[in-house]
């Protein structure tokens, strides 16, 4: 059925989120999570969230969550992003790895990894891409060979976000060199302080070391750290790829908050003269409508999931839409700012601490990570529309 009124239970939940976030919002901005000091400040924020039950509200209570339903989780996310509190340094673990551990992990693995992930004690980074395996992820060359009860890993991972300071890396490695492509891959969880693991920060477009290259030189990892079955890594990984592309990684709250800031910016800039250029007004409104469209599409999807439907390749539709929406929101703000758009945070004339520039640079990565939008459009064409592969 369609009933878009928030019931008293949801309203109460929303007010509780809103109040807690208002009471605990840090006084000033904290350093970027992609700097050494900012990384630890964000870890402390994760701990504060966890201690109050807000780090993973949708998880079961036994792992530090509140057992929220999907609607509550979406409400939490809306409030979270509207509150203007720090970003989530643990997002990669919580959004991308945790669903896989819930689906494929043993009880021992769940008990061992999930509570420490929830509290920020362990921050996770994704080790999937390689220099020769980007869009063509099945071309992974990093190899692991079993020696007794340990896997010995050799090879290289790259574009590993948060990889420079993360505590753990979740990797896909080739365990059967005879097998072709998608076969013979294994999903394995690697402590970042393992002997034989070396990492080198890589500065991103904004100059911050948000990426890392990871080098494995006879790096030994316990066989207990394999997630799912040996040789089944592709299937295990793709289950998480659905989460990464769909609503788990990018809930609508983030874009609704950006859309609200964009309309505020348009009003502020328009207040100085005779309003803003009519074309910019049209673009601001288009971005705002699309943020709402993402919100309602997500609620529609969440309702159907709660009715028992399953999400498959449709996640690719969401990934293309939110990444292009994020870019549209920020590019429109850049056009509104005109000459001031390029000013960085230290410039006396910069607007809002150059948050739009930072957001724009980050938004530019959206159509690339989590599977490029070209790959997503191929998936939509072949698996949603049923067009011939070749």
């Amino acid at each position, binding site marked *: *059925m*369609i*009933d*878009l*009124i*928030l*019931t008293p239970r*949801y309203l109460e939940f929303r007010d509780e989120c809103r109040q807690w976030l208002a009471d605990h919002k840090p006084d000033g901005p904290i350093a970027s999570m992609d700097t050494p000091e900012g990384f630890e400040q964000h870890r402390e924020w994760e701990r504060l969230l966890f201690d109050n039950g807000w780090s993973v509200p949708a998880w079961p209570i036994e792992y530090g969550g509140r057992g929220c339903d999907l*609607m509550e989780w979406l409400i939490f996310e809306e409030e979270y992003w509207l509150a203007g509190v720090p970003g989530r340094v643990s997002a990669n673990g919580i959004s991308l790895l945790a669903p896989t551990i819930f689906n494929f992990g043993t009880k021992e693995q769940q008990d061992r990894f999930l509570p420490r992930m929830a509290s920020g004690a362990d921050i996770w980074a994704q080790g999937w891409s390689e220099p020769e395996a980007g869009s063509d992820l099945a071309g992974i060359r990093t190899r692991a060979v079993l020696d007794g009860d340990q896997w010995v890993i050799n090879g290289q991972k790259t574009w590993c976000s948060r990889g420079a300071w993360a505590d753990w890396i979740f990797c896909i490695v080739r365990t059967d060199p005879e097998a072709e492509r998608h076969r013979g891959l294994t999903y394995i969880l690697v402590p970042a302080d393992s002997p034989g693991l070396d990492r080198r920060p890589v500065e991103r477009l904004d100059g911050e070391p948000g990426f890392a290259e990871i080098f494995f030189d006879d790096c030994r990892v316990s066989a207990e750290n394999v997630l799912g079955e040996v040789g089944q890594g592709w299937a295990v990984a793709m289950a998480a790829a659905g989460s990464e592309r769909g609503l788990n990684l990018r809930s609508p709250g983030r874009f609704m908050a950006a859309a609200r800031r964009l*309309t505020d910016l*348009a*009003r502020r800039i*328009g207040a100085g003269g005779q309003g*803003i250029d009519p074309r910019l*007004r*049209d673009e*601001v*409104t*288009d971005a*705002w*409508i*699309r943020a*709402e*469209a*993402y919100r*309602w*599409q997500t*609620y*529609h999807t*969440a*309702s*159907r999931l*709660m*009715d028992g439907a399953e999400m498959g390749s*449709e996640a690719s*539709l969401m990934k*293309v*839409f939110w990444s292009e929406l994020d870019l549209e929101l920020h590019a429109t703000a850049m056009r509104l700012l005109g000459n001031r758009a390029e000013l960085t945070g230290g410039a006396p004339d910069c607007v809002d601490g150059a948050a739009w520039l930072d957001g724009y640079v980050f938004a530019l990565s959206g159509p690339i990570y989590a599977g490029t939008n*070209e790959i*997503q*459009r*191929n998936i*939509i*064409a*072949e698996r*949603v*529309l*049923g*067009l*011939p*592969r*070749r």
Partner: protein
Amino acid sequence: MRFSFTEEQDMFRDTIRDLLSNRCSPSDIRVGIASDDGRVPGLWDALADMGVLAMLAPEEAGGLGMNEIDMVRVLEEAGYAGFPEPLGEHAAVAVPALVEGGAEHLASAAASGEITCTIGLDAGGPYIVSARIADLLVLEQAGRLWAVPSDAATFTEQPSIDATRRLTTVEFDTANATLLDAASVGMATDRAILSASAQCLGVSRRLLDATVEYVSQRHQFGKPVGSYQAVKHHLANVRIGVEFAAPLVYRAAWSVASPKSVAPADRSRDVSMAKALASDAVDAACRAALQCHGAIGYTIEYDLQIWLKRGWALSAAWGDARRHRSLVADAIGV
């Protein structure tokens, strides 16, 4: 908070889909195009028999007592089928306006299909759809709605490119009309915009399905043209456009159907958001469908033209995307 359709709603939609797929094929539509009145023989009566014309009339007036949420799904199917008669004008706008305006006899005659209605409201511009086959017109003048018998109006034909959507300008004198005093122009306008939005979705889906089928069969350079990425990405974009326009249309339908919960200004904003994305979606669908078909799509013999022309018309009808973005901008204070 729930935002999905019930099994009953899906079943009702499926019944309409089956009926239209059996009775409103492209060749049926071409019979209408070639005829004087533009109608598909027998189809209006079949819809009346199923109660579709009476969906928005209350049960005590012989209607089905359904709401706009059910209605938009029927109108999506009408768009998908290319149904060439004024279903939205009649069932989604005129019937509830007659009910709300207290014209009981006219409302029950319209709900049963005894008379056919169309509408002319300021927001829809000067050209009225299917006026020549209408027995009754619900027309706006000086901010009020009037029920005007067709013999109290004069019509001037305005030939247009969509031969299934016959346009006229209309002049009338309120002396022979019934004032629908209690019916709201704003509500009628929002219902009309919502109806066009829902049909845009259906037209987009049909253009997409037809094009997927065509490019899967058409071979060039020894393989289906649908296997080329350039073609795939055009059609993926169409699918994305429909995917994100549809929830805004359903949400707007809920807003129109929930006057106790949604203030008129918010309802109008929600409807404009829906039309903005639905118009964008159908524009993109028309453009991609024609491009991916190539020259065959550029002919009058090929059936694609039915949906291309409907798409062009509906995209602009009741305000195009830019017009509705401007209304949304006013509503959100940009």
